[in-house]
């Protein structure tokens, strides 16, 4: 197919380049997979046989399991909190007109550009000042603030796609705001809500900077990883756990995205 945008050969060159970049993106992940089964204390060539030792080690490692569990709790609380706040603010941004709307929307999205490191420190100082001790709740608060903009970025476009006439029709039929939201708006934005939940969950699960300042003595999964990376003896089992987490998150992300497109094309709004 030749067009003004792209000649036939140009298309071939670009396709080759695209393939090359995809290889560059996935090769490191593939290398981790290979070395997670490698029977050697160091991840280096030549390969020295197949083993499941590293996977067994990480399953038996209590600290690591505890860190994973802590991160899962934080991520779950964060995603639910961020999505609730995200839905509320998105409805306000998409449906209502109020004074100072540009300012409010800029403020809501500002955590996108603020370095997490600085934000973590700022929150640390705040909690220090008002005497709240650090722990899981403080991390959740920090993570809600940084994931909120992502939920809004997913939800607002979806709300804008939905015709307001549908909601107005519900009001005309005597439904109040809550009933309208529950029966009309919410089902229509559900795919976006699921994406928002997943984005908030994965972001929080993986977040290091804010968590490291706010978690206190406990260890989240990224914090555990960060410190384990300084001890070479732990490297092989860290690689094994890395493979599990990477593959699970890749699968979830791809499945969620495909699912969302499928549902949205079926609902067809």
């Amino acid at each position: 197919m030749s067009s003004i945008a792209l000649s036939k050969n140009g298309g071939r060159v670009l396709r080759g380049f695209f393939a090359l970049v995809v290889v560059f993106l996935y090769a490191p992940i593939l290398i981790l997979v290979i070395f997670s089964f490698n029977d050697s204390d160091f991840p280096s060539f030549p390969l020295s046989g197949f083993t499941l030792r590293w996977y067994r080690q990480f399953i038996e490692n209590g600290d690591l399991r505890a860190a994973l569990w802590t991160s899962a709790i934080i991520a779950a609380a964060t995603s639910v909190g961020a999505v609730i706040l995200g839905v509320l603010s998105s409805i306000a941004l998409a449906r209502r007109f109020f004074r100072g709307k540009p300012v409010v929307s800029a403020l809501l999205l500002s955590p996108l550009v603020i370095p997490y490191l600085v934000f973590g420190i700022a929150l640390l100082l705040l909690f220090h000042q008002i005497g709240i001790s650090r722990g899981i709740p403080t991390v959740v608060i920090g993570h809600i603030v940084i994931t909120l903009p992502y939920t809004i970025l997913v939800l607002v476009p979806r709300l804008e796609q939905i015709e307001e006439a549908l909601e107005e029709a519900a009001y005309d039929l005597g439904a109040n705001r809550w009933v309208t939201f529950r029966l009309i708006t919410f089902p229509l934005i559900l795919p976006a809500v699921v994406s928002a939940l997943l984005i908030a969950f994965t972001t929080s699960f993986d977040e290091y900077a804010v968590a490291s300042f706010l978690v206190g003595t406990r260890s989240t999964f990224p914090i555990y990883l960060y410190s384990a990376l300084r001890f070479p003896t732990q490297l092989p089992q860290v690689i094994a756990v890395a493979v599990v987490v990477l593959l699970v998150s890749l699968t979830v992300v791809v499945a969620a995205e495909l699912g969302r497109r499928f549902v949205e094309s079926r609902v067809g709004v």
Partner: protein
Amino acid sequence: MAWLGVFFVAPIVIVALYSFNVYTLFGGPHGFTLDAWHTVANSGIYRHLFWKSIEMSLIVSISIVVLAYPLAYYLALSGTRRKYVLLLLLIAPFLTSYLLRVLAWKVILGDQGVINSFLVWTHLRAQEHPISQLLYSRFAVMLVLAYIWLPFVALPIFVSLENLDQRLLEAAGDLYASRWRAFIAVTLPLSLPGVIAAFFFVFVPTIGEFVTPSLVGGTGGYMYGNQIVDKFGAGFPDWETGSVLALFLIIVVAILTALFSRFLQPQRVAAE
């Protein structure tokens, strides 16, 4: 709907409080003083680190925008039918763990890592002479940052190319513009907002980067963000200086955001 107001304002208050609070603690315990600002302003080390970080972020952001443009162009304009599948393939790594992708590079680049051991194994290089500049260097930091942000950069560029009115290109063709001329006169200017947004969304976070440099940077890759962390760290805590450095970074980011703000409509980055 008052309850909406409460929930709606709450996060803003949290956001507002922190920036405010950096200020109070900085002036707080000792009364208002500019000492720490003076120290920072007069210190060549901080200035040097700051410019070094800016320079590294600039190199990384510009190179990956240049790399990502043809990718986005291919997806948006080649007429391939698997456009969205390919886009997902490109972006998926960005949505997985950041730290784990850094970890992968640490394994690959180390002195006994995948690349060096492969070279030794295949007798391309002697065991005593690994390519040790691979890890713990500026190069390593920039490579890893580029690897991490590349998929993300393609997205806003793709969105702007996708929204481009194809009839304009056809019109250019009808007017006997060459492909190259059509690209320079039509496609490139119209996609520029996406390019600028992409640049901004890499440049800003990488200035304050500290995880990647501390894991693969060694001393050569030490960045401004590492300095801030160290000021708040366990060794020799110096919250005052640290706060100044942090606040200065916020100011720089705020100025950059203001400069770029007209290119930063949320739709440009939303994954649609």
